[in-house]
């Protein structure tokens, strides 16, 4: 009898702790969720602004969006998001959100701004799981490496030089970390090739409702 009572009392007090914890979490969540969503949105706009200066376009970039798949240029079934930048209705550039798949550890998510003339307006890494302290030097907060893409195009450098220096190309690598920059360089080149082949589609396809951007 007392044993059974003890079990009930234990179960109830554990349930009380669980309920209190859940109540605390849902309270904090409801207070912070709109602020977190706003911060995430600002972070997205901030990131887009880093690859394409906001003065270059006058449309609502985060709403002029298409997403698509193309196994040839963007392998492993990834969904690519394209933000189209226009000034007075004229297309000026597109920002592609895609991933490099040959990194050291999982996908490296990238943003690449491509001007209408096929030059890169900027490239940023939006998220990755490369080794901290090694492969993470592709992040802008940790080194300037990724700014080396700005102004590059398929003609500059030549296709055979679109590689890290160890492979005979023009892009720097880091001591002990060749795999990460190699994957990024290759993925950016693929994105440029896709742009060259599909420019019409990128700018003219009707806008789809954005599903938001992954971190």
């Amino acid at each position, binding site marked *: 009898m007392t044993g059974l009572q*003890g079990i009930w*009392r*234990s*179960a109830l*007090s*554990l349930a*009380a*702790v*669980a309920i209190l*914890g*859940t109540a*605390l*979490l849902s309270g*904090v*969540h409801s207070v*912070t969720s709109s*602020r*977190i969503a706003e*911060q995430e949105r*600002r*972070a997205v706009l901030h990131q887009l602004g880093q690859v394409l200066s906001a003065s270059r376009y006058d449309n609502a970039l985060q709403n002029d969006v298409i997403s698509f798949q193309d196994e040839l240029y963007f392998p492993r079934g990834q969904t690519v998001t394209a933000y189209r930048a226009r000034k007075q209705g004229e297309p000026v550039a597109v920002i592609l959100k895609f991933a490099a798949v040959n990194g050291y550890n999982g996908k490296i998510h990238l943003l690449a701004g491509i001007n209408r003339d096929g030059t890169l307006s900027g490239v940023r890494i939006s998220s990755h799981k490369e*080794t*901290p*302290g*090694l492969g993470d030097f592709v992040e802008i*907060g*940790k080194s300037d490496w990724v700014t080396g893409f700005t102004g590059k195009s398929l003609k500059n450098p030549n296709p055979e030089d679109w590689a890290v220096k160890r492979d005979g190309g023009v892009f720097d690598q880091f*001591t*002990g970390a060749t795999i990460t920059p190699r994957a990024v360089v290759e993925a950016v080149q693929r994105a440029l090739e896709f742009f060259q082949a599909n420019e019409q589609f990128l700018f003219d396809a009707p806008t789809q409702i954005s599903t938001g951007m992954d971190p």
Partner: protein
Amino acid sequence: MNDSSYRKIFMDGLWHQNTGLVVLLGLCPLLAVTNTVVNGLGLGLATTLTLLASNLSVSLARHLIRPEIRIPAYVLIIASVVTVIQLLMQAFVHDLYRVLGIFIPLIVTNCAIIGRAEAFASRNRAVPALIDGLATGLGFTLTLVLLGAARELLGRGTLLSQAGLMFGSAGKSLELTLIPNYDGFLPALLPPGAFILLGLLIAGRNGLKARRQAASSRKPLLSQETPA
């Protein structure tokens, strides 16, 4: 409790029972993130905050939680506290969260936190529990920063790199390159280097302690306690 026992609690957490160097709890996050000083400091401060909140909650609830269910109750409390800290960081210090984000959930896996809840907070009043949480957290931070400094210096020849991510533009001036044009020493940045350097840190701490004991008592070295 008087001042001297508070001081004892504090020094135990910070030094005599240092989580990283003596008790050797929480090695998973310790080894995972300490490749730079800034990473170590960030995780250390977040862990300290968690310890303060979890020790306080466990101490306040110590009469309500029956012994048989105390471990799952502590797990619930710690997981709730860490998630709340994560949400608050996401909402109010978003830039810092973007840097430390992946390490925050790791705090839940730090057995030092449940260890303090079980060994101290569940048996003491709120104020000593808070002091214990603060001291344990600072001691853990100290270990993380020391190990981070050793690995960053050996591995990259810098100290406090990326401090700007944590302290804003003022932190940029803290970033030091001590060995210019250093080629880097990869093993120090990888987990094996963390193990070896942590071992050296522990040995150094034990050596320091042995020297102090030898100096204070003229007894032979045999009377030392064995390393934990």
